[in-house]
Structure formats: structure tokens, C-alpha cells
């Protein structure tokens, strides 16, 4: 414990000395996020400095081993680092799917050479990754994916297309599920490949959502050649890695019900529907908001409890499905209430008054929450099967 207190003091001192003042202001827009990569244009010298200093300490990925560019911190130390950064209002020096998704997968499934090749570049923000999972035809039945990787001796020949590849148009490399054995049962012919997005035959097309422009792309592979050294894990065993990453992703999306706006629903509604004796004049909306707040608070506690259960070794592996399902449905409900409370003002789509249709776009965007990262229906299937043990689920 004493060591941890020392670590806390040293960390604070280091951050105060090294985090540029510009990086200690809340980010104003998505543009302030540093994604890194070959073509990254730093928004400011401060952004570059902050990344370089953090990467030098391995603190862009504090818990990864030092030999792969990480900070080698224990879980407790990493927690202290995060806390201290929050206290000092330090921005994240680097966000990336490499850190959130590929890194953990490589640490678990990659070979030594792959770890040494890719992890340090992720940690330093040199290579930006995107994810190639879903396909236009696959949907919830992810394992039905059709992108082929044919064995051509030293290389695979990849043909097909992926959808919902976030920032594929800006990424340097992709980690990708491909079918290497078309004759095997669908879960047993899938492999996990890495390749450079600058390879000949790769092209991307941005996807516009009902909420407007989005980071999503459709990505096409037309006779792309990929060295066999870029296969992660065993041939035809890619589904294990996919499942590992899907659980990971669910955990990230599940927290959504709790994103708290600055203004509470009760306040937003008071402005539009008015109040009588301190109670919202729209009594139905009032009870809908109260019912939502009850569920939202209880859900936050459920997330806390899931963490505490994990700590004492009682976590159920399918609990991430519960959190993903409940959290995303809750967030959709919240956005419906934001729209109800906002009335016609919330229906505006462009212009400064509505901050370019902020409410309406956020509401529409929320509808994807229960689709992306495994639909609500898939989560319910998983709960029925893995927690309740219902037959044939």
C-alpha cells in the first residue's frame, strides 16, 4: 500500500510536469481525439508532445508489458494512473482500436513475432487499425461471413467485403475475419488475418447513417495478397479470437445507458412543459422520466456489482450480454425521453440553434446501440442459453 501511495505521488508529479496545459482541458469535439497513424495530422504541438511523452513511458497502454511498448503497470497502478489523469483533467493521449481491441487479442493469441511487430506501433500511435468483422450478408449471424482467403502458398488471396468498418478510410491496417475453409462447419473455417490497408485491391466507401455522416465504411477486397505470417492463432480457429473480442466489445458498448448529459431529463422537460408546484406539468412525462431514472440508477449499480462479482471470482461469463442488452435498451429509452422533453425544438436538423440537430441525431444514432456489437436479440439468446440453460437456445 505504501508503494502505491508513492506511485500516486510520483504519477501526479510527472503528469503535472509533462502534460501540456492545452491537454488538460476537456475536449470540445471529436476532432480533439488523437487517433494516431501514418497520416495523422496532429491538431497542435501539444497533442504531439503529449502523445510522445506518454508513449515513451508506455502509458498509452499502461498495463501492457514493457517489452511491447507498454507501461508494465499492475492493475492497481493503472487504476491510480487513470484516477490521477481524471483528477488533473488530462486528455487521453491516444485512442485506437489497436489499443482497445487488437492489442488484447494479440497479447492472448498472437505469436512472439506478431507481438513485437505490432504492439509497440500501436502503443506509439504509429499504426492506426480498423476492424473487419461484419459483412453485408452476415448481420447477427456473424459466423456466416463469406470473405474468402484462399491458400496461395506463402500468401492468402483475399476476396470479399466488410461493412461497419469504423474509420476504415483512415486506418493503416485491418484485423479481419476471413473464411479459410469453405467446406467446414461455419464456425470452424474462419481465420483471423492482419493486413495493410494500402495493399493492392483494398478500397473503402463511407456509410451515411440515418443520423448523418458516420465513421463507418464499407470495405472491399479484390484479390488482396496477404503474407501467411499475418495469420493470428491457428488456421481455421479464428472464431475463438472473434468471440473473445466480441465479449470485449459488448462490455464497451454496454455502459451506454449511463452516459449522463450535463442537464437532467427533469430539467430539460421543465423548460418545455413547465412546472406546477415544483412538479412537471406533464404528469405522464414526469412518471416516464422517474421510471427511467430508477432503471438507470439501478443499472449503474448492476455494472458496479458485475465488477465486484468479478473481483470475488463469481462473475458469470454471460453477464456482458446482460449489460449490453440492458444498457443499450436503456439508452434508447433515454433518447426517446430527450426527444419528448425537447418537443419541436428537438426536431431540428441543421442550424446553430439546434447545434446542427444534436438531439435528433443523437436520438437516431442511439437506435443502432441495440444492433451493433451483437443485437439485443442475440444477447437474449445468449442469456437464455448460457445463463438460464434453456434447451435449444
Amino acid at each position: 500500500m505504501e508503494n502505491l501511495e508513492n506511485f500516486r505521488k510520483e504519477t501526479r508529479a510527472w503528469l503535472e510536469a509533462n502534460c501540456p496545459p492545452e491537454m488538460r482541458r476537456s475536449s470540445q469535439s471529436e476532432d480533439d481525439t488523437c487517433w494516431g497513424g501514418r497520416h495523422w495530422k496532429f491538431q497542435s504541438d501539444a497533442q504531439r508532445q503529449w502523445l510522445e511523452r506518454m508513449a515513451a513511458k508506455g502509458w498509452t497502454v499502461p498495463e501492457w508489458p514493457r517489452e511491447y511498448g507498454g507501461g508494465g503497470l499492475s492493475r492497481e497502478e493503472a487504476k491510480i494512473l487513470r484516477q490521477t489523469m481524471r483528477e488533473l483533467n488530462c486528455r487521453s493521449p491516444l485512442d485506437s482500436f489497436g489499443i482497445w481491441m487488437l492489442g488484447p487479442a494479440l497479447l492472448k493469441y498472437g505469436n512472439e513475432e506478431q507481438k513485437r511487430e505490432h504492439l509497440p506501433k500501436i502503443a506509439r500511435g504509429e499504426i492506426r487499425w480498423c476492424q473487419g468483422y461484419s459483412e453485408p450478408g452476415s448481420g447477427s449471424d456473424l459466423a456466416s461471413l463469406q470473405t474468402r482467403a484462399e491458400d496461395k502458398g506463402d500468401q492468402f488471396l483475399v476476396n470479399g467485403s466488410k461493412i461497419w468498418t469504423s474509420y476504415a478510410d483512415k486506418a493503416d491496417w485491418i484485423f479481419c475475419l476471413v473464411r479459410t475453409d469453405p467446406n467446414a462447419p461455419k464456425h470452424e473455417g474462419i481465420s483471423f488475418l492482419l493486413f495493410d490497408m494500402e495493399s493492392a485491391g483494398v478500397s473503402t466507401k463511407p456509410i451515411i447513417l440515418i443520423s448523418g455522416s458516420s465513421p463507418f465504411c464499407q470495405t472491399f477486397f479484390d484479390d488482396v495478397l496477404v503474407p501467411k505470417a499475418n495469420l493470428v492463432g491457428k488456421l481455421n480457429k479464428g472464431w475463438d479470437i472473434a468471440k473473445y473480442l466480441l465479449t470485449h466489445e459488448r462490455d464497451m458498448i454496454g455502459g451506454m445507458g449511463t452516459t449522463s448529459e450535463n442537464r437532467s431529463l427533469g430539467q430539460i422537460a421543465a423548460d418545455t412543459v413547465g412546472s406546477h408546484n415544483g412538479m412537471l406539468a406533464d404528469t405522464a412525462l414526469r412518471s416516464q422520466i422517474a421510471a427511467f431514472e430508477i432503471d438507470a440508477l439501478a443499472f449503474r449499480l448492476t455494472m458496479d456489482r458485475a465488477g465486484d462479482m468479478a473481483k470475488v471470482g463469481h462473475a458469470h461469463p454471460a453477464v456482458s450480454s446482460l449489460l449490453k442488452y440492458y444498457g443499450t435498451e436503456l439508452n434508447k429509452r433515454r433518447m426517446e425521453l430527450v426527444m419528448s422533453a425537447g418537443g419541436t425544438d428537438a426536431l431540428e436538423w441543421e442550424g446553430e440553434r439546434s447545434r446542427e440537430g444534436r438531439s435528433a441525431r443523437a436520438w437516431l444514432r442511439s437506435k443502432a446501440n441495440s444492433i451493433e456489437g451483437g443485437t439485443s436479440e442475440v444477447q437474449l439468446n445468449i442469456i437464455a442459453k448460457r445463463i438460464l440453460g434453456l434447451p435449444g437456445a
Partner: protein
Amino acid sequence: MALVLNDEQTMLRDNARGFLAKNAPIAHLRALRDNRDADGFSRALWKNFVQMGWAGILVPQDYGGLGLGHVEAGVVMEELGRTLTPSPFLSTAVLAASAIARAGTDQQKENYLPKIVAGELIATLAVDETAKHHPEKIAMTATRAGNGFKLSGAKTFVIDGHVAKLLIVVARTSGKAGDTAGLTLFLVDASAPGVRSERTSTVDTHNAARITFDDVNASADSVLGKIDAGWDVLEGVLNVGRAAVAAEMVGASEEAFSRTVAYLKERKQFGKAIGEFQALQHRAAHLYCELEVTRAAVLKALQTLDDSYDRAGAIVSVAKARAGLSATLAVNEAVQMHGGIGMTDEFDIGLFMKRVRVCQELFGDSNFHADRLARLNRY
């Protein structure tokens, strides 16, 4: 009256459906949107509506209209909902025509109704001042000045307010916000000095505007109905608008539903059509029931406006409240059941979600109408 369309109404529906499918499918809305059309609707299409008599659907034959009823207006609204077609039908042919035909003096009718029928006049109702519908809370003032009035205040989400030439403006001649007494309706020329209109860009790419009135002159002749006693006229025309918008939601939600059912039959996952999954079957069947129950209520509301206009308040609220809820369920289920593709702009289903959200809000959302019904039933 039997809760079914009669032969003439069925024919009107079939004609409207055929015409709109051909001339104003959803691609029509997309073109207006993507070209950032200044009007937000097609004047050529509106001319077609006029030729078919739709602009005068609620206008008495004496003034050149078809002299039909609210059921017929609802039939057209439902079909417009199915194709998400923006047009001045709601503002002009439903709201304005109904208000003038019912409350206007002979002179006012003579002045305006033939022009509406002929498609020469786009007119609308300017009522709401806040983001939520609160007709009794109108604060805009009309102060006596000489023989007439000076109007000052601001209206929001005025349907077609950016193109309307005639505004039916509700203002307060006495009393205070919250009173139903003291309201008066005025027929105001949109080009009168002091009227300023700003088009609203809306999520559904339909048309609305914010309009401000800065000491706008209104003559004594411009009063529609009685001074200080505009509430009953306003409630009447709002009920007409509510029932019409409910009918539009019936059309939009049933179209979204039928596209969803088709998708359930066609889309394969895990080796079978997703419509084979019982969880989706039950949700679709439940939704079907909700839509059928709403349809009965909306038809009854329209019939009641035709039969006993002054006693339609309760059933109109039932219809509007239910239509808002069942259409919201329909579009939410539609997007969820379509999955990722339903989230893309390129696919039409999301456009139904956008329009239904706007219709839910127009002239009172489901909560407003549930509250209204509770008040009517004294609890």
C-alpha cells in the same frame, strides 16, 4: 356508421395510392432533400393534387370544393403517410380550409376558399409558441389599434410557414397565458410588414417555419370567428389536424410494418428466414394488433368529426394518442428488425422513423392527449 370505408372512400384510397406510388414515391422526398429544394415540396405535384380536387376536399361545393368529409381527408393523409410525401395538403387543404369554411364570414370564404381550391393560395395555421403543444398558453398579443389590431409575438413550427401566403394566427386579445378565454384568430397576409419567417430544417425533411410578428397590422375584417372567443374554433381545427396527422401516422406505420414483414420473410440468418424466429413472430404479431386497434380509433375519430364535430374531442385524443404510440412502436421495431441496414441513410426505413417522430409531436403528443382525456373524464 359502420367502421369501414364505403365504396367511394375505397375508390379514393385506391386512386390516391396508385397516383402517389407512381408520382411521389419515397424517391421524391429524397430528391427534394438531396437537392435542398427551396420550397421543400414540389409545386408540380401540388398542381396535380389540385387537379384531382384534393386542395378542396373539405371545401363546400358552393365554393368550388369537393365538399367531402374528414374521413376522405384522412384517406388522403394516410396515403401521403405511406409515401412520406411533403405537400401543403395538411396546412392548406386540411387546417386552413377547414378553419375558414367553418368559422369564416361569407366574405372571407369567398375571398379565400376558391383560391385554395384552385391551388392559388397556400395557407396555414400558426398556433404553437413553445416546443411543446400548449394551445391555451398562447402569449402572443393582439392589441386594439384604431379599427383593427396590432399583432406581436412569435410562432414556432408553423407547418409550411415558409411558403404560406395566408397565416391563420392565434393571438391573445384578453386574459393571460393559460386562459382559454381571450383568444382570437386572425387571417394575416404573410407579406404584411412586420411578419418575418425563417424556415426550419427538420429531421423529416418536411416543412415548417418560425414566424415572428412585430406590430403587424390586422384589420377588423381579418378576425376569423369571434373576438376573445376563438377557443372553440381553435379546438375544432386542432381536432381536425390531430385526426389528420393520426391518419398520416396510420399510413406511415403500416407501410413501415409491411416493409418489415417482407424483410422478415426475405432476410436469412443462421440458415433460415429471420421471420421463422418465434420471438420476432410474436413481436410482429403484437405490433399488427396494435396497428389494427389504432386504425379503428382513427377511423372513428374521422367519422365523428363528420357526424358530430363538436363532440369529437375525446375520440380524437384517443386516436392521436394511440397513433403516436403504435406508430412509434412500428418504426422502432422496423429499424431494429432490419438491423444494420435499417440504420443506413441509403435504406428507406429510417425515413419513416423520422416522419413519425414529427407527427407524434404535432398538435400534442401521446402524453398530451392522455392528459386531455383524463381531464375530460374528470380524474
